[in-house]
């Protein structure tokens, strides 16, 4: 039974086509994956459905009846629920208020808000997702981005978990797992399956193929804004999906190591402690990729942030190529040849109002001056063009605003910035988040090239295959401490996962 049918959507932004003939049919009771390369138009299609973007042409039908969605309120009324790629939270309101934003709060004596009731209701919604560690009364701003994502998911699901209200018919999720840990993702999948069993339709966007193959019933592929195919997942090979997305044969995988790790020390961290980290010590060699693993918030990001001085001071000693260094601000980290890619591209990485070139050049402005203070725009543009090509950035040009790029292309801008200054050590926190399979391979290949030139990479990732196949060694963190260090020689994903959870059956290496 067809629930939603989108036909021949067209949308251009200032002359640039985002959608040209995008169609999609979703049945009740199915998980329908929407696939495509970065910039293919997935988020734009979803924004049209949400009443956020006005299409130039095309039609939408629900239950066979043509409808128009002019605003988010319309979409809500029609029983559509959204989890957008770009989290929009109200940071100074509580978790509970974020969940019930725009809905009726429970009342007391008709006109007073029943705060306790509100918090209870929010807790119930969160519990429906299997989430118990988030206090509904807490301010949204104080949550990690992963937790914020869970709250947004809860907000979309709220009337599915508790009775009352119009039950939603269609859930639309744009890369909901990009900021989630493996464990949180699994919980989300359980909820999605439950919704499907109750007859809801689900549109699901993700660049993680394994996830899609596991969860979805059918998929539709967009390429350059047009629908190229809709297929049943059953009997479909990953290879075919990739081919549909990028239009050529391409085996998912990882580029091989190009050169052995050198014996020379690149970065040494001794007895690093902060409010959270306890006595973290490790060494990385030139040409090595050191992976950082662990459950969400176990210390991987904190180590990287502490090394670059993102959170002020810390105890312990850091040396680069054998020389002790003192870094208490990111500016000194960049100056000393460390490049830092933060975890959250929108909050911590990008200046959305600035151009691609302006974002790439930000830490390297001192290398782009003439006469001591005049910015050399031509050189800046040239830098962005060259790097943009290397990371396969899809954009109108180097002066396009980052705000206008698709999520994955924004991520590529942050990556381009990191390799722009020819750093000795790259500290990367989830560098391939939201990046499509092809571009991901290119980024991995670039990392291989850099390490072959003797550069060093510290790679924190919740993507376990990325660690297993790219890293030489992996440090596993647990509660702010180094739990163990393993070589990736012969390590598989399951074993690494077990180490992250700290399950006793974990094999040691």
């Amino acid at each position: 039974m067809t629930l939603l049918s989108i036909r021949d959507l067209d949308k251009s932004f200032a002359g640039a086509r985002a959608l040209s003939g995008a169609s999609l049919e979703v049945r009740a009771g199915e998980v329908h994956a929407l696939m495509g390369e970065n910039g293919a138009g997935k988020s734009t299609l979803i924004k049209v459905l949400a009443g956020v973007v006005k299409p130039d042409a095309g039609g939408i039908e629900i239950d066979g009846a043509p409808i128009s969605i002019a605003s988010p309120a319309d979409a809500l009324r029609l029983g559509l629920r959204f989890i957008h790629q770009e989290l929009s939270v109200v940071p100074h309101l509580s978790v509970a208020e974020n969940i019930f934003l725009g809905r009726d709060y429970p009342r007391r004596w008709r006109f007073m808000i029943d705060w306790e009731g509100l918090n209870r209701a929010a807790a119930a919604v969160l519990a429906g997702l299997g989430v118990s560690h988030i206090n509904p009364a807490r301010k949204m701003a104080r949550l990690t981005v992963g937790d914020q994502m869970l709250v947004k998911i809860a907000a979309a699901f709220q009337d599915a978990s508790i009775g009352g209200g119009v039950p939603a018919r269609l859930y639309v999720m744009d890369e909901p797992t990009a900021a989630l840990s493996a464990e949180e993702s699994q919980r989300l999948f359980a909820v999605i399956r439950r919704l499907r069993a109750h007859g809801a339709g689900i549109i699901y966007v993700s660049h993680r193929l394994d996830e899609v193959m596991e969860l979805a019933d059918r998929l539709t592929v967009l390429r350059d804004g047009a629908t190229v195919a809709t297929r049943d997942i059953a009997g479909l090979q990953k290879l075919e999906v990739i081919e549909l997305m990028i239009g050529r044969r391409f085996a998912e995988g990882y580029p091989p190591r190009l050169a052995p790790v050198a014996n020379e020390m690149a970065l040494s961290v001794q007895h690093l402690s902060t409010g959270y980290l306890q006595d973290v010590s490790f060494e990385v060699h030139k040409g090595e990729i050191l992976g950082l693993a662990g459950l969400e918030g176990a210390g991987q990001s904190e180590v990287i942030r502490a090394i670059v001085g993102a959170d002020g001071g810390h105890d312990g000693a850091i040396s680069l190529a054998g020389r002790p260094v003192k870094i208490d601000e990111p500016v000194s980290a960049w100056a000393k040849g460390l490049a830092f890619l933060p975890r959250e591209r929108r909050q911590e990485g990008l200046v959305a109002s600035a151009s691609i070139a302006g974002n790439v050049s930000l830490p390297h402005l001192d290398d782009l001056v003439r006469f001591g203070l005049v910015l050399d725009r031509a050189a800046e543009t040239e830098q962005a063009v060259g790097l943009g090509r290397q990371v396969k950035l899809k954009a109108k040009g180097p002066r396009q605003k980052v705000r206008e790029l698709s999520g994955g292309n924004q991520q590529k801008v942050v990556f381009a910035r990191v390799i722009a200054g020819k750093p000795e050590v790259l500290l990367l926190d989830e560098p391939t988040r939201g990046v499509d399979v092809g571009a991901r391979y290119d980024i991995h290949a670039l990392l291989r090239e850099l390490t072959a030139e003797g550069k060093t990479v510290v790679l924190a990732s919740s993507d376990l295959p990325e660690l297993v196949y790219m890293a030489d060694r992996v440090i596993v963190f647990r509660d702010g401490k180094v739990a163990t260090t393993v070589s990736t020689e012969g390590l598989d994903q399951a074993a690494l996962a077990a180490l992250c959870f700290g399950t006793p059956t974990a094999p040691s290496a």
Partner: protein
Amino acid sequence: MASALKTYGTLIGFILVVVFFWIEIPDTFMTAKNWLNISQQVSMLAVVAFTMTIVMVMGDFDLSVGSMASLAGIVAALAFHDGYGVEIGVALALIIGLAGGLLNGVLVAYVGILPFVATLGTLTIYSGLAFLVSGGKTIFGRDIPPAFSGFARSGIPLSDTVSLPSLTLVAALVLLAVWFVLEQTTFGRRLYAIGGNKEAARLAGIRVKRLRFFAFGLSGLGAATAGLMYASRVASANPTQGSGLMLDAIAAVFLGMTMSDEGEPHVLATLVGVLILGVLGNGLTQMSIDSYVREVLIGSIIVLAVAASSIGKARG
């Protein structure tokens, strides 16, 4: 079309205002003499608005500029009163302006007080100081050296009847300097990055605190410059004479911001904002419209312009 209106709406509005006065005041409005006159009238506001743009680029405000302008005028006048020369008086006033601005910078960047609150505090302090050191009196007459007050009356002759006022020239130089700093240097680029996303800028190796500190210094310096221009123009100094500058300067920057699709301040756009305010003031005065009515009109126009541009930008 709609997007052109969004970006150029304010500029079109400015042109409409000019055309309106041209028609209403056919004899005097559209003359070189009147425009040079307007340029001189707005020169002080212009200087404050241009340097205010520097802090507003970072998403900050400086509310203390008006009282700093008054204080700077008083400081110079007192120096003259005590027999110091023009150079010394001017230098002292500028130093006070820079120091006051840097104090704002310390409070905002290093102590971490919201700019609104910090500069509201220093607004009161600088204004209080101006009263304190002047004893609340206007300093005028023989205390003000003719070389100082003569500056505002001087100019570069353009023809037999009109000349380019020195004050206009000062404003133009400040405009050029601020444009150069904001649009051409890495310093300016960094300020815009801070305004766009402070945290991302910091993590990308920008010294956010230091730059905010310096930017407030420049704003203080601009305020003191305007204070000196004012004192020279009226050949006197009193502790409240700069007080009108702050609101108008912020309004001018806001009017300019409506012209950028990112809502970022740019100094050339601020210039348009200043001219709108200046032309309105000049035209309405020539039409002998009551000054209270004038205020209501100018305020409404600002609100309308900003509202129109934010409504235009709300939906993609």
